[in-house]
């Protein structure tokens, strides 16, 4: 065994590559199987389904995290805050609009299946979720406005 050629860094690098490129795609199949089984029993299956997608996209997710963590120079004290900000910005402006579209589709399905236009039939929840997803910045600004208005205290 040539111990002189083995290094801790290389070991971790290969471990990360093996986990990301070999194990996670294999686990994705397990998560899909689990989601199908959970769906068949009427249980919550979204977690397994999204986990399967994330397992297949692990390289892309790492690259995304690297992009979030490269918003400023490496020695900029604000880099961690900027990277968190970029992550939140990406979730709010990229992921949530897509989620809003899925909620509109869910609302349409609900209306089509139950054909009951009533606030308690569930379609309204999907509609409001889609609206909130698209109005996230506005909701935040509204909350900020309320807090700003309240800085004077109670008179």
């Amino acid at each position: 065994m040539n111990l002189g050629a083995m290094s801790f860094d290389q070991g971790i690098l290969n471990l990360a590559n093996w986990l990301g490129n070999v194990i996670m795609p294999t686990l994705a199949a397990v998560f899909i199987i689990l989601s199908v089984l959970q769906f068949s029993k009427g249980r919550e299956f979204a977690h397994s389904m999204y986990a399967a997608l994330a397992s297949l996209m692990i390289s892309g997710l790492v690259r995304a995290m690297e992009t979030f963590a490269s918003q400023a120079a490496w020695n900029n004290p604000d880099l961690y805050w900027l990277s968190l900000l970029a992550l939140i910005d990406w979730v709010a402006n990229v992921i949530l609009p897509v989620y809003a579209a899925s909620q509109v589709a869910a609302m349409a399905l609900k209306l089509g299946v139950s054909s009951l236009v009533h606030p308690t039939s569930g379609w309204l929840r999907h509609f409001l979720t889609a609206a909130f997803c698209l109005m996230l910045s506005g909701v935040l600004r509204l909350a900020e406005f309320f807090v700003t208005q309240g800085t004077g205290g109670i008179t």
Partner: protein
Amino acid sequence: MPTPPVLDDLISVLLLLAPSAAVLSLVLAGISLRREGTMTFTIGGGFTKWMFWAVFFVTLQPLLGWFSSFGITTPLPSGGIATGWIGSLVADISQFITGFVVQRLVPTLAAFFVLRAVLDGASGQQPLASILTAMFLLGVETTYGLLQSYNTGTPYAMADVLDSLWNHLAGTIMPLAAVLALVGAILNFATHKPFMRLVAVSLAMLTTSAIWKLVVSMM
């Protein structure tokens, strides 16, 4: 009065055995990494203590340079060991550490830690800690070479090596650990466990140097 040759030889023995002591300290650091329980290390725990001693032994000679600045002359013996049996003792101990401990014992120990990882998994614990320990043990020789390459040979060598080790940890190891944290986040998400912490940790691992600068700028 000249230094007695036996004393010169004893000083030479101690200095020549320093590299072996450093390698042995690295092996003990690897074992402590797992014994401390998790995949991270405890500040002031066994891992940090043995790493400190490894760095100390690597930079022993430059550290002695401080005595000169205190006004105490410390002439280090040169020209090898005069007494034959003491010279062979050093060679034997060095051969024992390299040939027996590092080449034979450490790989076996690492193999036991891989076994331990499997058993960790069986008992519901994280197997990653034992795997990382096995990797650390297998990389002991290279880690020793890394410490030597950071040795500046000045009286500040010990601090220089520790500085360089921090840079290596923050710049090379942490970005790789960020990938492992993301994998952990996905597994936690799939099993309905908290995962946001690991996402935040992953970002923090990618920006460790910036967090250090942030702490410095807060002072």
